[in-house]
């Protein structure tokens, strides 16, 4: 009875949360909105351009960055091709070290597993470090809704949590926020005077969170890598909060995607050399932690119970496609976001998905269904900057083109778009049709144009002129000019 009541409150709260969800990616709306938001563009540029430059400089330290990226991609590809084998090996090794591995088929299943662990261990206070998978399944909201005291401990994620916002970048979650808005938020949340000095803000969060660390009985982490041959989870971070999660609380849950495996401990030397350089232009992230199983006999900190929850949530769908399988190599470094001219203009929220940027435009439709996210593959200029940046050499532009192909093949693109293409094909079929079409186009545009510019195109071209004017076409078409020349 009580269980039912709790469940229904959770369901309601989650439904309420979804009601406030980001709208799905909509090209017209996004391009118009973001072209008007200069401040956002500046904030994003400030962060991502710097990280992008840092990456380019740091990669120069490697003897042959192109070949080391190939090697890293090959290691990940090998792991994906034999993922079932490595999952079994990893599980056996975690169990040898006193830990437990749980497999979750989707978000709902993962949440159930985690809530079960929480209730059977009678846990009260939870500290959670940053992990994209938990964003994927909205874990923090579910825990909050279940009445648990759960706090995000990465500074950026903490700010996102208390502001009921969403991260806009997979590595630097709050680049869309300025310090004034954070200062305002803190002064309201903590009831303290306004102070927008980043040091002071950080200090305030530190004091608050330190007390949470001290009293926590469950820690949650993600995992950047899982080592199959040892059963270790590897986290990489700058602040130290993931370390807190695996140090202080008596129970530890690491929630990780099944694709995060690498076969050998030695593979970390390749991956760690690439990850921090690609993500933030650092040689090494401040803390790289390698931990597995429970605390050993005699140790007085670290978890007494250690759980690894490995989640599928659409990944096996991608695995099954030989064409798209390589997209699962992703180590979530964010380099493709930083390099992307579209991301820089529209920011992370515009993508309307947990994973933004080029990799988000790719894996979101693949994991969650192309029907729902059919516009996302268009959020790219196909310039190839993402592919150049990617440390595991995922050919993102190629896959985005293939997704566009899939959209057309399945006929799920907009009917008007299909109509236009059909009309276009008709016009291109015979010279007289082409002449007719270009004459019609020219005449109409000159008719509605004024002083050399068309200010508003009629349907379906309205989006084009919403933020810019279009020059009127010339009096004579190219073909007419050509004729006269002869």
């Amino acid at each position, binding site marked *: 009875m009580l269980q039912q009541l709790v469940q229904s409150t959770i369901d309601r709260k989650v439904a309420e949360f979804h009601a406030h969800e980001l709208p799905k990616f909509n090209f017209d709306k996004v391009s118009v909105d973001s072209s008007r938001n200069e401040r956002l563009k500046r904030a994003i540029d*400030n962060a991502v351009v710097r990280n992008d430059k840092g990456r380019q400089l740091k990669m120069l*330290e490697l*003897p042959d960055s192109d070949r080391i990226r190939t*090697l890293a991609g090959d290691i990940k590809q*090998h792991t994906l091709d*034999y*993922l*079932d*084998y490595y*999952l079994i090996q990893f599980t056996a090794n975690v169990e040898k*070290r006193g830990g437990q591995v749980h*497999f*979750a*088929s989707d978000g709902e*299943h993962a949440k159930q597993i985690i809530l079960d662990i929480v209730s059977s261990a009678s846990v009260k206070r939870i500290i959670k470090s940053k992990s994209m998978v938990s964003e994927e399944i909205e874990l923090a909201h579910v825990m909050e809704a279940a009445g648990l005291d759960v706090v995000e*401990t*990465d*500074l*950026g994620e903490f700010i996102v949590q208390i502001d009921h916002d969403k991260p806009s970048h997979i590595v630097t979650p*709050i680049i869309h926020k*300025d*310090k004034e808005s954070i200062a305002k938020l803190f002064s309201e949340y903590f009831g303290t005077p306004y102070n927008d000095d*980043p*040091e002071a803000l*950080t200090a305030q*969060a*530190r004091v608050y969170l330190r007390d949470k660390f001290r009293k926590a009985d469950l820690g949650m982490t993600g995992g950047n890598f899982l080592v199959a041959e040892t*059963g270790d989870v590897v986290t990489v971070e*700058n*602040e*130290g909060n993931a*370390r*807190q999660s*695996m*140090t*202080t609380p008596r129970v530890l849950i690491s929630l990780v995607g*099944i694709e995060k495996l690498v076969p050998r401990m*030695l593979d*970390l*030397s*390749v991956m760690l050399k690439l990850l921090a350089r690609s993500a933030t232009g650092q*040689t*090494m992230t*401040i*803390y*790289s932690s*390698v*931990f597995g199983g429970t605390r*050993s*006999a005699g*140790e*007085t*900190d*670290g978890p007494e119970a250690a759980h690894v929850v*490995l989640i*599928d949530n659409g990944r*096996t*769908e991608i*695995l*099954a496609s030989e064409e798209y399988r390589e997209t699962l190599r992703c180590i979530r470094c964010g380099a493709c976001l930083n390099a992307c001219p579209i991301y820089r203009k529209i920011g992370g929220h515009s993508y309307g998905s947990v994973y933004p940027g080029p990799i988000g435009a790719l894996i979101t439709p693949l994991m969650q269904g192309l029907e729902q996210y059919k516009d996302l593959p268009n959020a790219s200029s196909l310039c190839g900057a993402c592919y150049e940046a990617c440390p595991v050499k995922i050919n993102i532009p190629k896959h985005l083109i293939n997704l566009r192909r899939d959209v057309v093949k399945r006929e799920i693109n907009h009917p008007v778009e299909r109509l236009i293409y059909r009309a276009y094909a008709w016009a291109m079929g015979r010279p007289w049709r082409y002449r007719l079409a270009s004459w019609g186009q020219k005449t109409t545009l000159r008719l509605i144009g004024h002083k050399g510019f068309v200010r508003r195109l009629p349907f379906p071209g309205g989006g084009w002129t919403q933020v810019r004017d279009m020059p009127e076409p010339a009096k004579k078409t190219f073909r007419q000019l050509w004729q006269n020349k002869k």
Partner: protein
Amino acid sequence: MNDPHNVIGKVSRSLGRSAPPATVPDPPALQEPLIRLVLSDIGLPALFEKRAKENKIGVTPLRVESLHEELIGYLKARRVKSIALPNSKFLNRLEIPRVLREAGFIVSIWDQMTLDQLYDVDASVTDVWRVVAETGSLVLRASPEHGRALSLVPQIHVAIVEPKNCVGDLIDLFELTTREGSSSATVIISGPSKTADIEMNLVTGVHGPGVVQVFLLK
């Protein structure tokens, strides 16, 4: 086998087989020339010193005779009152616990204190498992004598490093880890805790120590 929750089964089917393979081909060879950045074993402590300083880790090279005086001076200058230490043969041999107590610090030893008490301690002084010259990093491993929290919770972390602790490259570190087996937790520390979350302003000392200092014995 068609249990929707059987993820491994689903993985196998996605890869076009009915069951996981019993053996797999070797993963790609690591091609050391491609990934190794530190080619020689000569001058590792000096390289470590340089890289660690780039990481904003303080490094003081010194002879063992001046260690006591320098260490006490360093801690006093930062108004440290209480210190936590691992129960380390190396530190005990250097008589660090005794010397610090005699200098007036409140000294607690990891296996005689609680984790909760550590939250009220100003600084920790530890040994290291290894340091990595390539990246200027300290590597610490958890044990009953040396808790994970020692290098994390106090706001000042001082490490005493011997030249023989130095390995050259991350490859050497992970080869060693592979040979010796994993401990329950190994952490590679490459600077003071930091964040750049707020408008890319760098702030040090978030959840881990804001100050990391190495005394590098000659």
